[in-house]
């Protein structure tokens, strides 16, 4: 019997924000938890992120933003995923977001949002509970 494929996650930094401490820690925590991780590096456009996600055949994209541009960039990633027929890729977000933005992002289709103070275990567990390899 073929071995079950591992969950594949892309950790991505959309926009011009350079704060990557969180994204890199999360990427490492996912890797240590046994997931396959692709980290895009900084300064990716939504188009680049979606293209890479499709090419890498990931199950989930984790978007990180700490500079206030999430309101445009996160929904834009979802929009392009839909345009490319890849809306089955789950999108989560992490970073700094005012309360009311979190509700709006979830409504737009971001599956879960993690904010400062979320533990690595909690973030890893969420993937284990919610993401199945496609």
């Amino acid at each position, binding site marked *: 019997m073929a071995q079950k494929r591992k969950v594949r996650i892309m950790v991505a930094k959309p926009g*011009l924000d350079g704060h990557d*401490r969180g994204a890199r*820690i999360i990427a*490492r*925590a996912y890797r240590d938890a046994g997931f396959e991780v692709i980290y895009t590096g900084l*300064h990716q456009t939504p188009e680049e992120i979606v293209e890479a996600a499709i090419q890498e055949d990931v199950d989930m994209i984790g978007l990180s933003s700490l*500079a206030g*541009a999430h309101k*445009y960039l996160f929904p834009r990633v979802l929009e392009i995923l839909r345009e490319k027929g890849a809306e089955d890729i789950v999108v989560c977000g992490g970073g*700094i977001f005012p309360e009311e933005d979190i509700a709006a992002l979830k409504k737009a289709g971001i599956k879960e949002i993690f904010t400062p103070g979320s533990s690595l275990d909690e973030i890893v567990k969420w993937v284990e509970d919610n993401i199945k390899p496609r």
Partner: protein
Amino acid sequence: MSLIFNRKIFEDIEKEHGAWQEKLDRVFEANPERLKRFSTVSDREIKRIYTPEDIRDQDFSDDIGFPGEYPFTRGAQPSMYRGRLWTMRMFAGLGSAYDTNRRFHLLVNQGQTGLSTAFDMPTLMGYDSDSPKARGECGRCGVAIDTLKDMEDLFEGLPIDRITTSMTINPPAAVIWAMYIVMAEKRGIKRDIIGGTIQNDMLKEFIAQKTFMCPPDSSVRIITDTVEYGTLEVPRWNTISISGYHIREAGSTAVQELAFTLADGIAYTQHAIERGLDVDAFAPRFSFFFNSHLDFFEEIAKFRAARRMWARIMKERFRAKDPRSWWLRFHTQTAGCSLTAQQPYNNVVRTALQALAAVLGGTQSLHTNSLDEVLALPTEEAATIALRTQQIIAEESGVTNTIDPLGGSYCVEALTNQLEEEAFEIIRKIDDMGGMLAAIEKNYPQQEIADSAYHYQRLVDEKQKTVVGLNKYVTDEKLKVDILEIDEELERLQIEKTGRIRNERDNSMVEQCLEKVAEACSGSRNVMGPLIEAVRAYATLQEICDVFRNVFGEYRDPGIY
């Protein structure tokens, strides 16, 4: 030689120390110590007690001495805060140039003594507000500057002939500085009068802060142009603010912050010397920028060690002769990464402790973070409390009455020595790799910082490190602080403004100016002269930065984690 301790005393001290230790062991046998291991926020182990034994070889004149005297352990200037308090410099930038100008006026009216400018992400990366890459980012985490007009509006009515201005800008630092020089000139203030700082430290960008444009070697070439130009033309300007702040925020330890920052300083010095400049002509205008993190004594020791190390590096390694080349002057910002979104009012207390450490460490200027900066740009009320924190330390606490009050503390002196020794070890490693540029290419500092950041996060998750309100003393209360909103309308207005300028300016003049910039970049002529002419003709930030990108190429993040 002036050894602090007579060697004869150690026999007695060791005996007494041994006896005390035995007594203590019995106490802890009955009731063990609170923790298995006591350590700093950088996970440095701290001893139960420090005694003269920990600084037995300390020489007063060689290692500690007097403030304003080599090796400057106790302070950069002889008078320190007895003469003049540090500059209270709150970092501010939000929305449009008009919005930020208003905040600047407010801060100056509240008693702030220097200006410090935060730019938005597109400006920091060398894009105009109407670039597709700037969508959703205009004015969000600082002020948007596209042209000289924005710079004029930003400083409208502010006394820039009397107060100094710091600008946190890196890849396009030379362009922004050119805009500032021309803006001042148009107000009749000559370039030899204006004072201030551009951050202009690209090495730490590759290492930690990650706003970059061109590859490392070209970036350092432009920086060296600014150093040369400043030395000859703008004598009161600090041309590089060699920064550890972002290295620490990215997750480094205290000693990594110290070592990588000074190694960056060594690289800039080396390049300027290779350009043919005399070290004593430019080194006095280098300034530094450190983080003040949570661990009180380790931070104070770090500041003291930084001064002593830089003095030794400049005197012994670069043979600088002017004492002003030896001194390390620094700005400090309290640690943004130490603040919590949970129970945000606790951040006022954290910031106060960190500010106190910076003052006891002898900082020349200080930014104190606002309680809400973990959530958004600070509101006016929060920024005022942060400024008041500095004023209370300065004028109520009494810590400014004497210089370097912790000098001579067994603990602080021992930590100062320890940090210096370990940081020099790291610098040696970087030297062996061929210097900081080579180390960055090997991803050495980036990887070290990533490792430290991950290690710390694990300690927090495992509750080995306490973060009040986050992993201990947790409550369910929802945060109740007001948050600053940036008007969505701003982006449209800013795009319109820049569009208007493009229509009104002399476009053939702009073309000519940009060609001159390209020529200077491709050749070896200093780029500052052509930049000044280009911004004067209202070339936009991105038009100029595109020339940089075309000539030098673009740097892409290697994505290390």
